[in-house]
């Protein structure tokens, strides 16, 4: 099977979908002519392949980019726009949250807004907190938006296809750290349904719920613990909203223990939602307290040792799990 980084997998999904459906166009800052010369980047080569009518480099105008998507979707197209880094989501948020998410409801269901907002996210590239700020919890708190956060290139390809084919606005968050970690990706057309979590590692002793780049950390911790005789079930959410409550709940009903792992700041992170869900619906199955392993409640610092301190690692996950056993 082909080995692709997540950027390449995204690229392939975009290519195949654009070939399939001429209503799809891309817009964003530097998505056509860019400052990166790397085939690992998600929009690499698409300008050459589809031309400037369908691959639109925009001015530095996040609200206009998002609004372009909203209007174009209402006008019959299927826009896929990019927010360059997650903190810039703030600048696009009125268009996405007050418009893309709400205008269908406000019309009484008469219109729809089939658009995808791709956001590049994640800490780890030394640029500091105005470039790194994981805000998926914001988007997940907005009815009318679906939030997809793939952890593997194969999932990214299949989920992006579903996002593009969805008639609702979908926010698709890519952790840039995953661009550079090739893994197997099926060739050709396939899609992965939005709203389905994936058990990336079955286990019996504890449920470890995570998403996006933290899946790698989770798997590392699970492997290590397996050697110590602890059998961890790793649930990769893949989609935050709609949330696959069934997969989470049946896992916790089986293991009786829950650890949630995310890179975003702890307080107010989406980990709380998982905790509440389990506490509401699987309380009787619980044998131990919750542990959350998350970024601390600080902005992401720039200096390498400080940034490493920010990002959760397998050691912390292992320690948290051991506290529950």
């Amino acid at each position, binding site marked *: 099977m082909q080995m692709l980084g997540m950027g390449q997998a995204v690229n392939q999904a975009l290519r195949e979908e654009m070939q399939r459906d001429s209503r799809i166009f891309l817009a964003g800052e530097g998505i056509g002519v860019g400052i990166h010369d790397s085939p690992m980047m998600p929009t690499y080569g698409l300008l050459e392949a589809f031309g400037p009518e369908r691959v639109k480099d925009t001015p530095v105008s996040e609200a206009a980019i998002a*609004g372009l998507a909203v209007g174009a979707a209402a006008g019959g197209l299927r826009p896929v726009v990019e927010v360059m880094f997650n903190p810039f989501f703030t600048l696009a948020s009125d268009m996405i949250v007050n418009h893309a998410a709400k205008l269908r409801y406000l019309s009484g269901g008469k219109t729809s807004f089939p658009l995808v907002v791709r956001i590049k996210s994640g800490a780890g590239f030394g640029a500091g907190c105005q470039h790194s700020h994981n805000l998926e919890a914001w988007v997940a708190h907005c009815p009318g938006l679906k939030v997809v956060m793939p952890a593997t290139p194969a999932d990214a390809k299949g989920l992006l296809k579903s996002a593009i084919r969805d008639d*609702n606005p979908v926010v698709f968050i890519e952790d840039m750290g995953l661009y550079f970690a090739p893994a197997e990706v099926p060739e050709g057309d396939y899609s992965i349904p939005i709203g389905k979590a994936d058990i990336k590692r079955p286990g019996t002793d504890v449920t470890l719920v995570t998403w996006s780049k933290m899946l790698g950390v989770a798997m590392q911790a699970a492997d290590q613990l397996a050697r110590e005789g602890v059998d961890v079930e790793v649930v990769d959410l893949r989609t935050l909203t709609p949330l696959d409550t069934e997969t989470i709940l049946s896992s916790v009903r089986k293991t009786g223990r829950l650890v949630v792992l995310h890179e975003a700041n702890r307080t107010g992170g989406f980990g709380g939602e998982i905790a509440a869900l389990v506490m509401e619906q699987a309380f009787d199955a619980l044998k131990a307290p919750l542990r959350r392993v998350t970024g601390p409640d600080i902005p992401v610092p720039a200096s390498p040792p400080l940034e490493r301190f920010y990002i959760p690692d397998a050691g912390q996950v292992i320690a948290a799990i051991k506290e529950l056993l």
Partner: protein
Amino acid sequence: MSISTQTKLDMLRAMLLARQFEETLTELCRQPGKIHGMMILATGQEAVGAGVCAALSPEDVILTNHRSHHHLLARGADPKALMAEIFGRRTGCNKGKSGTLHLAVPEVNALCTTTIVGGGFPIATGLGFAQQYQKQEAVTVCFFGDGATSEGSFHEALNLAGLWRLPVIFVCENNGYAAAQSYAEHTPVESLAARADAYGMPGECVDGNDAPSVLEATRRARERALAGDGPTLIECMTYRWRGHGETDPQHYQPAEEIAAWKERCPIARLSGFLQASGELSDAELEDLRASAAAIVTEAVRFAEESPWPEPEEALDDVWAE
């Protein structure tokens, strides 16, 4: 470009209907318990909706804002469905989800409406882009107030529309106020139309109480857009007769100012012109008035007799299937 009598009468009809519709809402707001939420009216500004919409063809798209009744009625929206929506009824054009503030009427290509001030600008560029991309013979009109031009979205969207030569007509309804703030208190330059220069698009300032002038400016802009020459900014100078909303005591609007502008009523102006030119008889004018009144009466009756939505219907319409 000449304006046919028929078109002038259509504009007059649209203005009379909007006036009647909104004066009735003013009345209804005085009756406790009839209308819930804010009530924002465009009384006195009717020539903008009528003039612009008279220049459009059915394929064109309009995008309006919190002060939308006159735009939507001129565009041909069903007064009953609007009124029922304003009353919060299930039969409203948006099933009670929107209320008066975000009336969307896709049936007349008013695909969505936003009450986020400035929210329309980027969406209009998107709608215009879709028209350009699909090579449609159609334009997008974006209605907005003078106050909305202070939003960053104005700048981002007009820059993009100018850059990509999108078929968008930006229609500023300069009624002298952004809520309680007068024009000079929010903008340090005399003309908003002049801001078009900053985006490489033509800007034009017209008498917003003269429907034919508005129509002609819109026609020019529409032709330019269809010819691929990009967007235009039209500033329509007009005035808000009533407060920002119906609960606003308007203390900050000088009484003489209001009175002076009422002298320049857009309806009296067009009907007077048509009467003077012999295109409209007194009897015909009375007929037009009566028919507007009948339509609004019927709309109110329809709204009042319509059922409320069931509470659980709130859960519908979030998601497309």
